[in-house]
Each structure stands twice: as structure tokens, then as C-alpha cells.
């Protein structure tokens, strides 16, 4: 692993630890309201101050980070998984199925994601957000996977397996997926960064996670009126840190995995 990748991994693990272990040491729960402190600055009682409605910013930020991490990583996993399935099947089977799948991908590419997410997301609350985000992120990767599959399926060892009577699903899993695996791993980590930013942006606009739930986007939106006060910057900073971490990790993984493509 390169140094950048290691830094990214360490950062990501620490952010996770902070988001999920932090609430244990925080004196306030994220949904508790302190009726004695509205819109206050940092103090010993509220480490990062309170919101206008008296909620603890530190607890809110951590809760938001949990949501952002879970939604972002889940969306990345779903998106990459879908890309892998659609791409390999389209490339391997070819013919009408290939055309239909790629037509579907192209259709999704031209739909305005913001509009569709705004319409779909409120229905199911925040758990819906990850699949809806993923639905708009897999298309380009699927096309790349399809192209790689087209060349992978012409490899002689794939041909030999086919001529030995191996079925398409087994051949894909055993011979094609390992060839595109490094691309998928890198893609998943880079998509996570995009998904987390997208989730933050949607929530900021009120289209993603909505009150009473919180995500980093809503915390930043809450602090909009007080941009100059640094406690609210903590949420934005954490968001940047998470995206930076997954991107560094993705870069690191790519550096490690690419030379292996056919090295052994």
C-alpha cells in the first residue's frame, strides 16, 4: 500500500471510530434539547455549542457523520455491485440483453438525478437515500466493466472454460470478475466520496435526510445563519475529511492493484 493509501485508511478508520464511539463520551444525546442554552457558543457544558433549538452541536455532528458514512458507503457498494452485475452480464452475454441493459444505462444518464431523488427520497426516509443515490451512479462504471468484459471473454482461458461446458454465470464469477476486480475496488472507494458529497448536498437542500433525522448536510444547513462561527464549520470539516479519506484510499488501492492486472 502506498503512503497516500495508508493515510486515507487511517483517516477513514479514525472518522468511523469518532462517529460511532464519540457519542459514548459525549454528555448529550443528539436528540436531547437543553432548554437552558439556545444558540450558544462552545463551552465546557456544550463542547461545540448549541443550535438555535438547544441541541448539542457535537452530538449532532457525530450523529450526522454516522448517517453520512453509512449512506455514502452503502450507496457506493450498491452502485459498484450493480455496475459489476450489469456490466459483466451485458458484456459476456451480448446480443439483445446487452443492448437492453446499455439502453437502460443511457436512459438513466440523461435523467436529472436531483429531480428524481427529490421525488423519490421523501417516501422511505433516509434508508431509501442510499439505493436512490446508487441508482444514479453505476452507469459509467457499468459501461467500463462491459468494455473490459468484452476483452476478458475473448481470453483463451475463458474460451477454454466455455468450450469445456462451463455455464455463463460460473464463467463470469470464476474468470471475468477477477479480471475486473481491481477496477471495482477502486471504483467503490471513489464512488463513496462522490456519494457522501451528494448526500450532504441533497440533505443541505432539504431533499435528502430530513428533520428530525440529521446528517452532515442538515447540520451544515442549520448553521447557515452562523457560517462565521466555527462550531458549524466542524460539520463541513468532517465532511471534507471523510471525502478526502476515501479518495486517498481509492488512489492508494488503484496504485497497488493496477500493476497486478496481469502481473501474475
Amino acid at each position, binding site marked *: 500500500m502506498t503512503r497516500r493509501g495508508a493515510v486515507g485508511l487511517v483517516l477513514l478508520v479514525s472518522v468511523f471510530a469518532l462517529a460511532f464511539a464519540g457519542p459514548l463520551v459525549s454528555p448529550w444525546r443528539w436528540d436531547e434539547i437543553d432548554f437552558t442554552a439556545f444558540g450558544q457558543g462552545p463551552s465546557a457544558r456544550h463542547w461545540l455549542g448549541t443550535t438555535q433549538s438547544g441541541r448539542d452541536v457535537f452530538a449532532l455532528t457525530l450523529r450526522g457523520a454516522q448517517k453520512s458514512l453509512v449512506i455514502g458507503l452503502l450507496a457506493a457498494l450498491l452502485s459498484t455491485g450493480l455496475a459489476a452485475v450489469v456490466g459483466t452480464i451485458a458484456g459476456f452475454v451480448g446480443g439483445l440483453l446487452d443492448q437492453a441493459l446499455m439502453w437502460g444505462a443511457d436512459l438513466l444518464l440523461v435523467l436529472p438525478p436531483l429531480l428524481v431523488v427529490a421525488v423519490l427520497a421523501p417516501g422511505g426516509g433516509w434508508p431509501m437515500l442510499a439505493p436512490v443515490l446508487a441508482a444514479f451512479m453505476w452507469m459509467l462504471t457499468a459501461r467500463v466493466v462491459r468494455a473490459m468484459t468484452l476483452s476478458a471473454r475473448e481470453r483463451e482461458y475463458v474460451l*477454454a*472454460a466455455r*468450450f469445456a*461446458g*462451463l455455464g455463463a454465470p460460473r464463467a463470469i464469477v*470464476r*474468470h471475468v470478475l477477477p479480471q475486473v476486480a481491481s477496477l471495482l475496488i477502486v471504483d467503490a472507494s471513489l464512488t463513496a466520496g462522490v456519494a457522501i458529497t451528494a448526500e450532504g448536498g441533497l440533505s443541505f437542500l432539504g431533499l435528502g435526510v430530513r428533520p428530525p433525522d440529521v446528517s452532515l448536510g442538515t447540520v451544515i444547513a442549520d448553521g447557515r445563519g452562523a457560517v462565521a462561527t466555527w462550531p458549524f464549520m466542524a460539520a463541513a470539516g468532517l465532511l471534507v475529511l471523510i471525502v478526502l479519506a476515501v479518495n486517498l484510499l481509492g488512489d492508494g488501492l488503484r496504485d497497488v492493484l493496477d500493476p497486478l492486472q*496481469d502481473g*501474475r
Partner: protein
Amino acid sequence: MVLKVTDLTVGYTGGVRAVRGVSFTVGVGEVLGVVGESGAGKTALALAVMGLLPDGADVTGSVRLRGDELIGRSDAELSRVRGKDLAMVFQESALTPVRTVGDQVAEAVRAHAKVTRAAARARAVELLDLVGIAAGRARSYPHEFSGGMRQRVMIAMAIANSPGVILADEPTAGLDATVQAQVLDVLRTAKDTTGAAIVLITHDLGLVEGFADRVMVMRAGRIAETGPVELLRSIPRMDGENVSRPRPERPAVLRVDGLVRHYPVFQGTLLRRRVGSVRAVDGVAFDVREGETLALVGESGCGKTTTLMEILRLSQPQKGRVVVLGQDTASLSAARRKALRRDVQVVFQDPVASLNPRMRVADIIAEPLTAHGFPSSLTGSRVTGLLELVGLKADHARRYPHALSGGQKQRVAIARALALEPRLLLLDEPVSALDASMQAGILTLLESLRDRLGLAYLLVAHDLAVVRRIADRIAVMHMGRIVEVGPTHDVYDTPAHPYTRALLQRVPLRGDPPDPMSPPAGCRFRTRCPRYVTLAGQDARLCDEQDPEPSKDPDRSVACHHPLVGAEANQ
């Protein structure tokens, strides 16, 4: 005497000695053939003479070019000699893809002679003309040329400064037999025009035979033998015994009839129009009987491999019929097709490409077994049995392909093909990616497997020594058609089709194969046919107008209006 090498030794760090005390001389205008298996030190010898070995190599002894010592000179001093008085033709064409061939030849001229750009360019055109490349093509890029033409450009560059010695290291490796002959012809012309001596390095004894004045056989870095070219006759060849056996009356495992495979060619970006089709396979018919080996031979691009792939698909061809073990592939259900796959297996050319690098040998061999529901409790012992069958040890099973030698990898590929106990094995150039010493081992294995298991082979190969050794029958393909079929020895000894003769006896043909999108009207071979040019008006018109049909007898047929032998010749 132009070149005198005395007691030359090449050692690499780590104690490997590639060349051990080699001495020889080459006279003016003489052709010395250096033959030996790969690893015998031929290439190291050539690189040492050229002074092109990497820094880690330790070269001792003496190399004198016209009396001047070359060993121990600095690289800068050597570059003044290299390409000027001592030229090299490499194994693969070392041309820059981004510059025209004319420019590259002109650059070779200007590197050693103070001439103007225009003069160099004019000289380049002359040189290209000498090696048989038309003046108009000087502005083409290397990728627009066939392999044989690229090798000719290399020869043009080598003789650009009228060198005293040309070192040619496997100058025809990877080229078709007919093109090999062309390149040798060009080399001969180059020698005659410039008076250069040639050191021809090759593993192919047949190449040296008609070309070299003297031969030097290398083995393990030493000179094993040296003498006149007749010496070669005493070296055991790979050719098999010369007996013609009658064709056994056994059922056919494979019957191909009028097989056609055309690939559409599209043009245009916005409006894609079909502008024609490449006739890769254009009406091919043959059969393979139980326990029999049929070899498909022909130049690259003649449709041999496409024919194999069409058979392996086991589905309805574009036209014609493929019948495997009595079952027409056009009417197979999916389940029947899968069952039939057990009986037809394939071994590819390059074992590196045909084995999944991420899987262990045991898993690779077991894959066809699991695909067909072989009980997993028995798989282990079956894999061990298969490994033994192909001459590997049981403990090879746990290795990955990269830990095996080329020959061992090919044995694994053969074991995988045999896992389902097939009755027909398709072999696509099974030994051409291997060294000569390993080739012999694999061929012996294939022969013994055929005899023990009663396998039938359909073999695609361009190495005629391999074909002659292993095939019972031979089918010669040209531009998607079979032009001649017959028992191997008959076809070798008395080829009936002019193309067969050119291919088997290394007669150079004029020009390159015609465009497969628009084959010439009438006989497809007539543009290159040496017999066509000798024909009188009436006979030639027949070739112009009528596509020759293969003669009736399927055991020995030829598709030619004017065959060289046989009953038709007398008509």
C-alpha cells in the same frame, strides 16, 4: 576475411556463461548459418559481436572486423561501426511506429553518411525498391505493412551503408513459409548487390539449407559442429518415417461440409453502412476419422483458426454443416450441446494465455469436471491421474501456472482438455509458443495419447516439420478455402496445387495475399500463382473466369484447373 571471432566468451552476472569460447571466421560475400536450439547462445553471440550486450555482461575474446578489434571499444566508438560496416537484422522488426518507413531508412543512411536530406530520401527509395517495396509506399507507416514487408524494410536499413557483414538473427521468425522464402530471397539480393557477408542465426534448419555456404551448429554455448551445408543432412530431423498408410475405414468423428464464416465490415461513424465482408472461411469441407490426425496448414489469415472456432461453437454455422459424432450442430438442444462438449475439446497455442493465472493447476484441470457435475469426492484423484497421464507430478497440482515452464503449462492445458475424455481434440498451434526442446516432448506426448486413448486430432499449425511428424492427412487452406487435401506424405512428395508446392517447399511467391474482402475473380490464387504466369491464353482464361472446384475424391482432392500432378494434369 571480413569477420574473425576468436575464443569469444560471454558471461552474465550470476555465473551463467551463454557463450563459451567460440571461434569462427566469415569471408567476403560468404553466408554462415548459425543453428541451434533456443538457449544455445546464438543471440548472445550476435549481440556480443555487435557490442549490444547490457552492462552486466562480461565479454572476453576477440572480434575483428576487417582486422580492427571491436571488443573493449567504447559504445560511442562502436556506434560508428554499427550500422555502417556491421549491420544487424533483428528477430522482430524494430521499426518506430510513428514515422514513415521511408524516413526511417533515410535516417539509417544519414546516420553514417554526410548527405542532404533529399539525397538520403532518394537513396531510401532506391533501397526500398531493391528489397521489393514500391517507391510509392515509402510514405507508409510500419503498421500498414505485413510482417514480411516490415522485415524487408529492416533489410533495407541494414544494407543502407553497404556493410561488410550483416548479422541476421532469426530474420524470418513468425513469418509464413511463403513469406520466409521471400525474405530470404531479398536477403540474397541484398548480399549480391552489396557484397556483404551474412551471418544467419536461426533454429530452423530448413532455412539454412538452401541459403548458407557453411553451417555452424551451437549447443550450450559452444560450437558443436562446423562445416559445409551438407552437414545438416546428418542431423536427425523431426520428420517422421516416410510410409504412406492407407486410410483406415473408421467412422468419422467430425464432418464439415461447405462451412462459411463471413465477418461483416462496417464503415462510417454516423451512418454505419455495411461495405462488405471478410470471407474468413468460405466453403470448407473435410472429415476427420477416429484416431486420425488432420492438419490444417496455410498462411496466417487463411482461416485455419476461424474454422476451429466455428467447430468449437457447436452451433449452426452461417452456411454449411458441422457434424460431430453423427450429430448435426445446427439441430442441437442446449443440453445436447453441453453434453457434446465433453467429446470435443481444445488446446490453444499459448499456454500462458489459456490458463487462468489466478487459479491453481488442480482447479484449472478440475474445472471441466465440475462443469459437468463430476462428483467432487473423486475430482482429486482424477486430477492426479490426469497429471500423470501428461507426464507431470502430483505435486504440480498445488502450483500456480507462473511457477511452471512453458512445456509444463502446455501439459496442464492438455490435461484440462483430456479431463472429460474427449474423442476429438482440436489443437491450435499447440507447440509454436514453445522452445524446440519442449516441442519435441509435447509432440511425443500428443502422439502417445492419440495411440493410447484413440483420440482424433484436428491440428492447426504453420510449422511444417510438426505437421509432417504428427499428421496423417493434411488440408492446405488458402483464403478461406481448402485447395488441397490428401495423405501427408503424398501431399509433401507430390503436391498437386501450385500453392501447396510453394508452401511446403518454401518457394517464394510474388506479392502478398489478396484482400480477403474482395478476392480476385476466378481462381483466388492466380494473382500469386507461379503456374498461372506460364499458361497460354486459353488455359489462363479458365483461371480468370472460373473458380476451381475441388476434385471429387475426398481422400485426395485438389482445387486447381491445372494441377501439377494427378489424373487431371494429363487431361
